[in-house]
């Protein structure tokens, strides 16, 4: 049965009910008036009684009509709000899960069906893009291996002049950068395709942070950047040791790279409710508000004028974000020009 038929039937039902009420009321009133009329002639009194009747019976009937209408609309719109709720939950990761269908073959069921078909097509396209990235990064590795190998072989050639040697070395540096980008892309493409399994085990976060703190001090020393670990509470969480170390080093490396000479990096690790909270702040030039939401995007560099000043693969924060999400945690960045830039990572602690 279509919604149109259903709505019509319901509305007909409701109308009948309050027409009946009005009918019965009017009938009884007229009946009484007629019986009075046999004894005396109609008076002013009878007229005012009639208008009273209109208010006493008519108003409640209208009220009932309103209530019925409201009930009807709600009834009619419930499938729409249910659908809206279901659609809100759709994002690129769960395209494969179809929206629940009622199976009643009405307009809404048909709409859900069409929508599900669209989701399936989208899922297909997304998969193709993911596969493309994955295949592309694989395909790039063979020529890259050859390029790196040949360039290194060239570097070993003693008949090369100093200038040629320098050129080959610079070429090799760029090739290695390219190799790191391809590595990062492969990792992210695999993560997107759900092909990276974390090796979860109890990990002492404070030990990882202390370790990372020591490395950061060394990394920061040449630029005269001071590194401080303000709080480091003893916390054990379930996680992938390698990935968490990669995350910490990534963030620390960023905090040093995007800092200014003689700047500061401040880290802390503390328990916050049922999460472990790691923060790392730096005194870099800050990130403008319009760039902030995009810093976790792949290859996002903010101000293109400065994009070449810092050496990196442009995937560090994307990888950091993936590692945090894979641990069911959250990562946030707060910054403004000429203010501290703070990255906060929260990882859930399961007892």
């Amino acid at each position, binding site marked *: 049965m279509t919604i149109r038929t259903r709505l019509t039937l319901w509305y007909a039902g409701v109308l009948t009910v309050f027409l009946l009420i009005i009918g019965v009321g009017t009938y009884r009133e007229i009946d009484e008036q007629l019986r009075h009329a046999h004894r005396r002639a109609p008076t002013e009194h009878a007229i005012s009684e009639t208008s009273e009747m209109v208010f006493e019976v008519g108003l409640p009937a209208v009220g009932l009509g309103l209530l019925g209408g409201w009930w009807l609309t709600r009834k009619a719109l419930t499938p729409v709000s249910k659908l809206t709720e279901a659609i809100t939950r759709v994002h690129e990761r769960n395209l494969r899960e179809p929206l629940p269908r009622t199976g009643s073959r009405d307009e809404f069921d048909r709409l859900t069906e069409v929508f599900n078909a669209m989701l399936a097509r989208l899922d297909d396209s997304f998969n193709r893009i993911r596969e493309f990235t994955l295949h592309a990064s*694989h395909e790039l*590795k*063979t020529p*890259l*291996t*050859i*390029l*790196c*190998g*040949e360039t*290194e*072989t060239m*570097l*070993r050639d003693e008949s090369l002049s100093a200038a040629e040697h320098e050129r080959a*070395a610079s070429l*090799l*540096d760029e*090739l*290695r950068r390219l*190799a*790191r980008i*391809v*590595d990062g892309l*492969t*990792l992210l493409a*695999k993560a997107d395709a759900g092909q*990276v*399994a974390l*090796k979860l085990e109890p990990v002492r976060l404070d030990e990882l942070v202390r370790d990372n703190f*020591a*490395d950061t001090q*060394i*990394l920061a*020393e*040449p630029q005269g950047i001071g590194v401080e670990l303000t709080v480091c509470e003893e916390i054990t969480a379930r996680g992938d040791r*390698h990935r968490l*170390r*990669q995350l910490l*080093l*990534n963030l620390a*490396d960023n905090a040093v790279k995007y800092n200014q000479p003689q700047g500061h990096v401040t880290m802390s690790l503390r328990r916050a409710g049922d999460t472990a909270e790691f923060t790392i702040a730096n005194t870099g030039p800050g990130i403008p508000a319009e760039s902030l939401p995009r810093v976790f995007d792949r290859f996002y560099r903010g101000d293109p004028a400065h994009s070449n000043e810092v050496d*990196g*693969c442009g995937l*560090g924060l994307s990888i950091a974000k993936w590692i945090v999400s894979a641990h069911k945690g959250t990562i946030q960045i707060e910054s403004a020009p000429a203010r501290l830039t703070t990255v906060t990572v929260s990882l859930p602690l399961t007892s």
Partner: protein
Amino acid sequence: MRVLVVEDERKTASFVRKALQAEGFAVDVCPNGDDALAATRVTPFDGIVLDIMLPGRDGLSVLRQLRERKNTTPVLLLSARGEVNERVEGLNAGADDYLPKPFELAELVARVRALTRRSGENKSTVLRVADLTLDTVTHRAQRGGKDIELTAREYRLLEFLMHSAGRLCGRMMILEKVWDYDFDPGTNLVDVYIKRLREKVDADFEPKLLHTVRGAGYVLKEPA
């Protein structure tokens, strides 16, 4: 020293062969797994460089077959897949080392060297290069009779370099052995640590022991 390189990509096989030959290895190349298995039956190799992705029988299968035949030749796996778990899978299947592609040639050579020399490693608890000594029990480092203060990480770095004294150590190899990183963090962590270590170990002394090999890595050695 005779090494078998199992690699189907012709150019890769070619420069790996050249690099290993330049280091004094005799090198045989096989383009597929079955040929490699056949070759190991007739020739005793000191090491095998084995690509995982091969046409037909893949590298892991070759490796399992080898180990089933009780062939204990050290194997270095190469892989373009760079799977996170592939390394573990490879080591479980009996590999001695694993290197993701694209690799640094110097790194590969250094690892093959390390593999083929593994058996005759120095078992002494005090490592010595020229007048530099490192006690692996007390963690005490001395040069020319003077104590050198080292942080935990610097100690591990020096210990690794001294264990591999005279051999080139690639950046990835150092990250792996000293930091236990199975990824390239893309930082200059190793270079900065080496610089610090050099200040402590070499700055006030002659001859210099810690050398940089441009584009390849580092080597700790007594000048010839």
